[in-house]
């Protein structure tokens, strides 16, 4: 299915529904999911195959972005486990654990958000708990804020070995535009222009170097880890042969 994503869903004896997500396997499509780390909005829709569209809402913050590879995995996986999750929910069970290791850890974040936002209003009292082991980064800061908010008070954990490189991936960069609306960084040029003579020239030089370097790094990452990997991903998806790109952002 998709990029070799698999999961298991089962009901524990103490009435806790558990969704366990598989990590990377030794197949190229599975690795492509890890490297396909372009950032896309956390809300929108994506065509998974000719007959299936994945409508997703993974964060309330409109600035939240998630890695597209993990999003594709979440799209395919959610279709697989949802029938097995809805059955216990319809029987009154309200405790759900989402867990996974490695790639499954990154998918744990997104699938926790998916389950929370899809079911919390129709199943009042639903409590989703996340255990992400050795997980890569799932998205940008605003997605992380949203995830930490919906799992506040001890409902979302990530387990990390400090010698492990995987939780440090995918490679990311912050530009001067990646701040909340009101900040002194994005429009620093206005402040710099108020300075005098040599100070203004020196500060402008430093700011421009930081701005251009980070912007160039972002463009490079977008090209190679977004567009280029995306072209390969469509060749290897086991469910279809087209690129999985968000078609529209929904509100």
């Amino acid at each position: 299915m998709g990029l070799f994503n698999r999961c298991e869903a089962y009901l524990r004896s103490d009435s806790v529904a558990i969704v366990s997500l598989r990590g990377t396997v030794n197949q190229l499509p599975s690795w492509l999911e890890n490297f396909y780390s372009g950032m896309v909005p956390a809300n929108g829709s994506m065509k998974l195959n000719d007959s299936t569209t994945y409508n997703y809402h993974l964060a309330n913050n409109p600035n939240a972005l998630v890695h597209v590879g993990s999003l594709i995995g979440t799209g395919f996986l959610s279709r697989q486990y949802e029938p097995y999750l809805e059955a216990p929910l319809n029987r009154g069970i309200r405790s759900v654990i989402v867990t996974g290791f490695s790639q499954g850890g990154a998918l744990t974040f997104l699938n926790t958000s998916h389950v929370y936002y899809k079911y919390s209003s129709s199943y009042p009292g639903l409590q989703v708990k996340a255990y992400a082991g050795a997980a890569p980064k799932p998205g940008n800061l605003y997605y992380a804020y949203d995830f930490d908010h919906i799992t506040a008070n001890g409902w979302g954990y990530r387990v990390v070995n400090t010698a492990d490189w995987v939780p440090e991936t995918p490679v990311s960069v912050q530009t001067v535009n990646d701040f909340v609306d009101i900040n002194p960084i994005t429009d620093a040029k206005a402040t710099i222009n108020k300075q005098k003579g040599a100070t203004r020239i020196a500060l402008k030089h430093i700011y421009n170097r930081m701005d251009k370097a980070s912007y160039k790094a972002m463009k490079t990452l977008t090209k190679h880890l977004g567009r280029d990997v995306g072209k390969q991903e469509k060749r290897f998806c086991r469910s279809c042969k087209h690129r999985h790109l968000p078609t529209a952002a929904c509100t």
Partner: protein
Amino acid sequence: MTAGNPVVLMADSAYHATFESPGANVSYHHMYQPYRYLLQKQYALK
């Protein structure tokens, strides 16, 4: 950006003495065994 409450498994000198990195396997510290070792040692995992 990462997310979630961190459960940090600190790879200290004792850990590195136990799990010396073999050059060929770059994912050595990503395996279950190092994680299990640190969870047992630092979080009393049974």
